[in-house]
């Protein structure tokens, strides 16, 4: 049965590596279908109501316990890697984890209860903050990806100086201080916890872990201790990432066991086994499961009574409509309410946007929408016409998948012109940068005076891609900018230019 651990590692890597590559890749070489791996995650599946995936995950949990935590969850595998590395730095005596420690039940159930209460009350903020897949996504996009890009840029510079253009520089423009700070804090906390105590995060803070802990009491297969052959050497306890093996009571706390099978591999007497659960013969007066249920109910009570509806308003720093305009959601968000409810800010769309126009929000959506993606236009950064990648990689259904043709008619915002700031009016010189970049020619040039032309916006064919704003030379407040919408409606299809059907047979000179 010792092979179980290796099977677990094998499958974990098959899932982890594609997700990792998908988050770190900036060349577009990692196949787009890899994003389906991100869909086989509890929180994205719940939010996108993917029944098939939910049934599969549920069956997996009911059959095998918290296999999601040990195999499917990228944050779980990340912690395994950290704690595995930590052993290299330990003295021989201290190899392994502390032995059995009791569960932090009040804490974990309170957190789960708060998350559930929040969801019922219509706020997915806590879920977004704590969903392990999204926490992993933010760590990758905010911390690891910039490092990968920097290494690439250094290499590209070096090769470029030798006349080799195989690699190319990629701009780093996604730095948003508050998002970085949150991601970095999670990275530090989770790494320290994993370094010292293995899966402590999963068993105290992670709401998915706690939820699966509740589920795993029904699981068909589980870790068992064979009392007759066990010599209580304690090797299994030391190897247990969850510190959930209690050799004094000869019990395994299944609510915390992530089915990593390390104990089975560690046991020299083959006393640890994985199999059908015991028939409950000598039930204690209060089984650990019952205790858990009780704590969960108490915690829910605390959470509900203590739930604070923290709904901070928008920042009001400047009254210019340029600063107070509505933020622009990525294409496919369709409806701001469902977008904010479903988005867990995993940053997958942010990392996959070839234009780097999608950035995590700081306060644009208010405090509850912190880290959720929005479009922030600047030079060369706008929503390019022939692309709908973001909407197609979203695992939670916050962005509905759009074909490129659909996206070309999806209005994410509308361009607003303030002619007094336009260089044509202010300086009386030709410009036309906005119209030049407008793919639908919603922004087009009309006669102004003395052969000069000025921009004009036909709102009903504008899709709010922001190309005009991104290139407008009026700085720092552009003369043309995009105002977001609450509901992304279909824009009118731009009329085609009349075709030229005469024959030109001469040069004209």
């Amino acid at each position, binding site marked *: 049965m010792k092979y179980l651990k290796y099977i677990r590692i094998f499958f974990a890597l098959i899932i982890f590596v594609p997700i990792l590559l998908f988050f770190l890749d900036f060349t577009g070489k990692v196949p787009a279908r890899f994003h389906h791996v991100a869909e086989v995650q509890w929180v994205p599946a719940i939010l996108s109501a993917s029944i098939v995936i939910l049934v599969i995950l549920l069956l997996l949990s009911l059959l095998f316990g918290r296999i999601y935590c040990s195999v499917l969850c990228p944050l779980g595998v990340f912690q395994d890697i950290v704690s595995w590395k930590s052993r290299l730095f330990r003295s021989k005596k201290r190899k392994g984890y502390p032995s059995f420690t009791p569960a932090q039940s009040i804490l974990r159930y309170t957190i789960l209860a708060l998350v559930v209460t929040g969801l019922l009350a219509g706020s997915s903020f806590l879920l977004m903050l704590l969903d392990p897949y999204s926490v992993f996504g933010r760590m990758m996009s905010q911390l690891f990806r910039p490092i990968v890009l920097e290494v690439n840029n250094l290499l590209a510079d070096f090769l470029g100086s030798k006349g080799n253009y195989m690699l190319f520089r990629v701009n780093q423009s996604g730095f948003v201080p508050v998002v970085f700070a949150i991601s970095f804090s999670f990275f530090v906390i989770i790494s320290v916890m994993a370094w010292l105590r293995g899966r402590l995060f999963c068993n105290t803070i992670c709401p998915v872990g706690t939820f699966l802990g509740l589920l795993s009491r029904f699981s068909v297969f589980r870790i068992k201790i064979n009392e007759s052959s066990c010599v209580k050497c304690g090797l299994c306890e030391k190897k247990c990432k969850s510190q959930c093996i209690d050799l004094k009571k000869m019990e395994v706390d299944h609510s915390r066991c992530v089915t990593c099978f390390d104990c089975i591999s560690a046991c020299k007497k083959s006393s640890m086994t994985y199999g059908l659960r015991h028939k409950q013969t000598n039930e204690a007066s209060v089984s650990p499961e019952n205790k858990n249920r009780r704590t969960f109910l108490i915690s829910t009570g605390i959470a509900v009574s203590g739930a604070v509806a923290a709904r901070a308003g928008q920042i009001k720093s400047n009254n210019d409509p340029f600063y107070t305009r509505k933020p622009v959601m990525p294409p496919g968000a369709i409806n701001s309410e469902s977008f904010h409810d479903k988005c867990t800010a995993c940053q997958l769309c942010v990392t996959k946007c070839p234009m780097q126009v999608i950035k995590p929000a700081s306060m644009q959506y208010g405090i509850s929408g912190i880290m959720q993606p929005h479009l922030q236009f600047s030079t060369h950064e706008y929503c390019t016409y022939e692309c709908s990648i973001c909407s197609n990689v979203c695992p939670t259904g916050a962005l509905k998948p759009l074909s490129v043709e659909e996206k070309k008619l999806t209005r994410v915002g509308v361009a607003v012109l303030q002619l007094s700031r336009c260089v044509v009016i202010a300086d009386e010189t030709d*410009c036309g940068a906005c119209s030049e970049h407008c793919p639908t*020619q919603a922004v087009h040039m009309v006669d102004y005076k003395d052969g000069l032309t000025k921009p004009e916006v036909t709102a009903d064919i504008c899709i709010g891609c922001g190309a005009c704003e991104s290139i407008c030379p009026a700085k720092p407040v552009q003369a043309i900018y995009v105002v977001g919408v609450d509901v992304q409606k279909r824009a009118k299809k731009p009329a085609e230019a009349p075709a030229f059907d005469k024959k030109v047979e*001469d040069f004209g000179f």
Partner: protein
Amino acid sequence: MKRRDFFRSATLTGLATVFSPKMLAEASVENELSVQAAPDMVAVMGGEPEVMLIRALKELGGIQKYVKKGYKVVIKPNIGWDRQPEMAANTNPDLIGALVKQCKSAGAKEVLVFDHTCDNWRKCYQNSGIEEAVVAAGGRMVPGNDETMYKSVDLPKGTRLKSTKIHEAILDCDVWFNVPVLKHHGGAKNSIAMKNLMGIVWDRGYFHKNDLHQCIADVATFHKSPALNIVDAYRIMKSNGPQGKSESDAVTLQSLIVSRDFVAADAAAIKLFSQVKPTDINDVRYIGMAENHNLGTQDLDRIKVKKIKL
């Protein structure tokens, strides 16, 4: 030159040197004229891009006149937009491929192609078909999105644009070709040869902010001018330029205009364009401004133009 001719001219020159300084002067002027007999502009109509290019180069004295063995060559097409070749938003990929092939056949050590694109550069290079054509012909694409590759250059003759950052590929090469596509343009009215120079520059925002037309004329004063401006008018964009909305903005004219003279090339291209969409050359103000910079002439009667219909 036949051996007999050589002896004859050598003898004559020798005699002239001995007998008359004036005759020598005349002979050498005549000699120069015979070398420069190539036209100032060649316009070709009615063929595929490669055929028209080869014909135009032949009239001008062959690619060998511009590309010597071992040269580092740069080709600067318009690859500004993430658009298919049929939309005429970018230079025709077949034309660029053919030009790379020509340079290679003349013994170029390497042929580099780049543009500082407006849309995402990777998507532009790919969807314009230019990357594929260049690589197939043995050339290489160079990134144009990287500010570190642009080096500051003074433009002492410029009026509004006194210095700007230009791509190092242009600065380092032995010879370069400017290969724009003929287009309508919302801001500059028309985008042809001189407007295409905005793609060798890093900071285009400065142009838009400081009199677009004057800056275009100013950047054309850059001392390292292209050996030839090869204006692609195989397909032109007649409306909604510079990126176009649909294929109905494109018109197939199967034409090519080649000249070293920026002003003449742009003026001739506008005349061709005007047959599809009448355009007043005076509204394309950078052309007159460039003429004031002594960069060439709008008056096509003053230069030798060779027109060829295939």
